[in-house]
């Protein structure tokens, strides 16, 4: 890497790190205000997230869906699209995976598991293709459409899981995933852990690598990024923006679907209604924190996973309420979005040799 590239990357990292530090400081002030001890609380937060191997595994498990949803938002964003519908795409992905994984009997794992994952991705991709198509062909803004598709997804899954596909019993859930379609959990491999961390996390790492490769090493990524940065220049360069918009939405939706499939096949082993605390929306924050870069998304997902699990522990062991975690997340996002503030607080030399 060139010296300038390294400097650029450090600069890119400084903003989120600065935002996190500021977020923690603001959190500390709030804790002092409500009479809690911030050092103790942050210690509990850290222990809850990384205190032992089991907690660490759980943090990774909580981060896994965020890797996918963060990538989903980031990929669409690289094409200039704001996909707020990842939550809905996650729902339909989970539904398809739950159906295929729970009902298709008699298949060997080597076929059934990939098929189930693909079904989840396809469902998410198709769900996102609709707003993509409307945007490309009719110019309808994707923000509006993806939000509305979310509501349709909630209602649809709510109805199906509570009624048509409901497994016997009290809770609205689908039948358990067949063993031939499950993602293996860590707790099933070692006896020191009962964590529900599954190989879905590894799939997340692979997805990061693939998305990075697609965006920066292929003509598809080149075209998608051109459309995102400069639609007119892309048109001039013979790139069919409409096709790229649909493609980007489908890939983004497929990643959202994959997030749902991982929850269903690895973590919950069934579609339990209310399984997502808003992974799709947290993905927006993760992508923002990660500056729409796969590596950034991975780190952002880990941070949010750690905050979430550590927060639960903090709530359990100290007097600080778990809501503070939401405040922390919000403040961090605020400072990332308002990166000008960070630039003022951590001044850097201007890069101005070209603007003379």
């Amino acid at each position, binding site marked *: 890497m060139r010296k*300038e590239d390294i400097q650029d990357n450090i600069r890119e990292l400084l903003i989120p790190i600065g935002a996190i530090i500021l977020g923690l400081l603001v959190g500390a002030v709030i804790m002092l205000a409500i009479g809690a001890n911030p050092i103790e609380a942050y210690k509990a937060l850290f222990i809850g997230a990384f205190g032992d191997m089991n907690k660490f595994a759980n943090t990774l498990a909580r981060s896994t869906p965020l890797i996918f949803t963060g990538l989903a938002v980031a990929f669409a964003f690289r094409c200039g699209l704001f996909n707020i519908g990842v939550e809905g795409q996650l729902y339909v992905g989970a539904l398809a995976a739950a159906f295929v994984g729970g009902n298709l009997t008699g298949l060997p794992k080597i076929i059934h598991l990939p098929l189930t994952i693909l079904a989840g991705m396809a469902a998410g991709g198709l769900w996102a293709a609709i707003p993509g198509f409307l945007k490309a062909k009719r110019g309808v803004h994707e923000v509006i459409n993806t939000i509305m598709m979310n509501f349709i997804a909630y209602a649809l899954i709510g109805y199906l899981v509570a009624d048509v596909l409901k497994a016997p019993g009290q809770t609205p859930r689908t039948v358990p995933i067949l063993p031939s379609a499950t993602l293996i959990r860590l707790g099933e491999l070692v006896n020191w852990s009962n964590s529900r961390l599954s190989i879905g996390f590894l799939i997340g790492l692979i997805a990061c690598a693939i998305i990075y490769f697609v965006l920066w090493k292929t*003509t598809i990524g*080149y075209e998608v990024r051109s459309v995102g*940065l*400069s639609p007119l220049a892309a*048109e001039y*360069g013979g790139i069919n923006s409409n096709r790229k918009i649909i493609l980007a939405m489908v890939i983004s939706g497929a990643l959202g679907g994959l997030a749902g499939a991982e929850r269903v096949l690895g973590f919950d082993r069934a579609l339990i209604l209310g399984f997502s605390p808003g992974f799709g929306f947290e993905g927006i924050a993760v992508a923002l924190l990660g500056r729409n870069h796969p590596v950034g998304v991975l780190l952002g997902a880990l941070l949010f996973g750690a905050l979430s699990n550590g927060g639960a522990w903090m709530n359990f062991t100290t007097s600080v309420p778990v809501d503070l975690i939401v405040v922390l997340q919000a403040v961090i996002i605020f400072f990332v979005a308002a990166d000008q503030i960070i630039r003022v607080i951590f001044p850097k030399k201007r890069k101005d*040799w*070209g*603007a003379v």
Partner: protein
Amino acid sequence: MQPILSMEGITKRFPGVIANDGVNFDLRAGEIHALVGENGAGKSTLMNILFGLYQPDEGRIVYKGEELTIDEPNQAIKLGIGMVHQHFKLVPPLTVTENIVLGSEPKSGLKFDRKKALKDVEALSEKYGLLVDPNAKIENISVGMQQRVEILKTLYRGADIIILDEPTAVLTPQEVKELFDILKGLTKQGKSIIFITHKLGEVMEITNRATVMRRGKTIGTVETSETSPTHLAEMMVGRQVLLRVEKEEAKPGKPVLRVDGLSANDDRGLLSVNHVSFEIREGEILGIAGVEGNGQSELLEVLTGLRKPVSGEVYLNEKKITGLTAKEIKNHQVGYVPEDRHKRGLVLDFSVSENTILGIHSRKPFAKGVNLDYKAINNHADHLIEKFDVRTPNNQVHVRNLSGGNQQKIIIARELDTDPVLFIASQPTRGVDIGAIEFIHRQIVDARDNGKAVLLVSAELQEVMSLSDRIAVIYEGEIVDILEAKDATEDKLGLLMAGIKK
């Protein structure tokens, strides 16, 4: 005469570069002072220091007899220094009045006093002879009018010094004339004007003195009446510059492009290209002269596949290419330098390397299947950088950070390197410095001499006249006449451009 402003020994260093190196500059009250130099010479840095955007590392600023430091633009504005940027900083949906008072609105209580604002603007507009419609929305008025609004903004804030950054780059010849009248009027009222430009004709026409900068240093300040364009050009570039294009007689061959009865609509659906027919042979340059907005842009967009024609046909080497997509036409070996390099020609946040393959990115050797071969791409970029003398630290810099001339060189390099049979260049030297203009003109003539058919569209009549072998004049979407370049005079073309035929 005591200068109103003097900047002495200004030095400003950025990492790896000295943008201003002991620069001296002084401005007299009531003069128009040109600040000329190629892009990257340090003009903008100097003006940004004066406007409080940068702090100088060394040197001092004396303004109205007082030595001071300018920490930020607000302070500069308070001191009476106003700046009109090249890219206007106006809010399109707001009215002229609202834009002028924005940020220092007259208030009655907490409320915006619209009546007083309107009255102030009208008074100001009358006082300085800058006629505007105070109630018109910015998005509905011409670029020339928008520029007046920018000037009024500085006057509203009490500017005594007005810095104009390449003010004519976006104007039509008529608007330029009007601007010059306005500037002369302003100086009569005691305002001083710093006029940043690299158009030497304008320096000669409008300014009292000129300060020339090169590579961060002041080369000298001259009285305009005692200098010549050639002399200024030499000071700017540091060597002799050919202001005229040297070229041999064209040796045209067989027709390459044939346009037959072509019509097209503009974005609003109005007919803007009206039954246009012409042909271009290999080894000749056909120039299109015309006031901007007479259908040139739409015509080129149809020829390059960016716009669908309404009727008519386009043939390239006798193959019909009417209505093909931009990609298909590019694959028929058509090179195109679009008029707006920022919006169309480049992806500004892509690296130099990535921009050198825009439009040819899926061809070998850059792409193997869907995989991009960055080694081949970077080699290609380095090759073009060297061949076309693109001034960039390396091939990974975002093109946004390069000067206009170097950006344009990248586009021209990319388009010529594909060895097109037809080379279309629109406004190839707009906003480009002298050294680069000379180079770009050379490239266009060389393309012709290599047997390419060249279609040139330019708002600079001089450019069309000096480069073209034949000149077509377009007026309201119609080709009014096509002249041999040797028969074309400025007067003749001017009449045709105004729609007056013979």
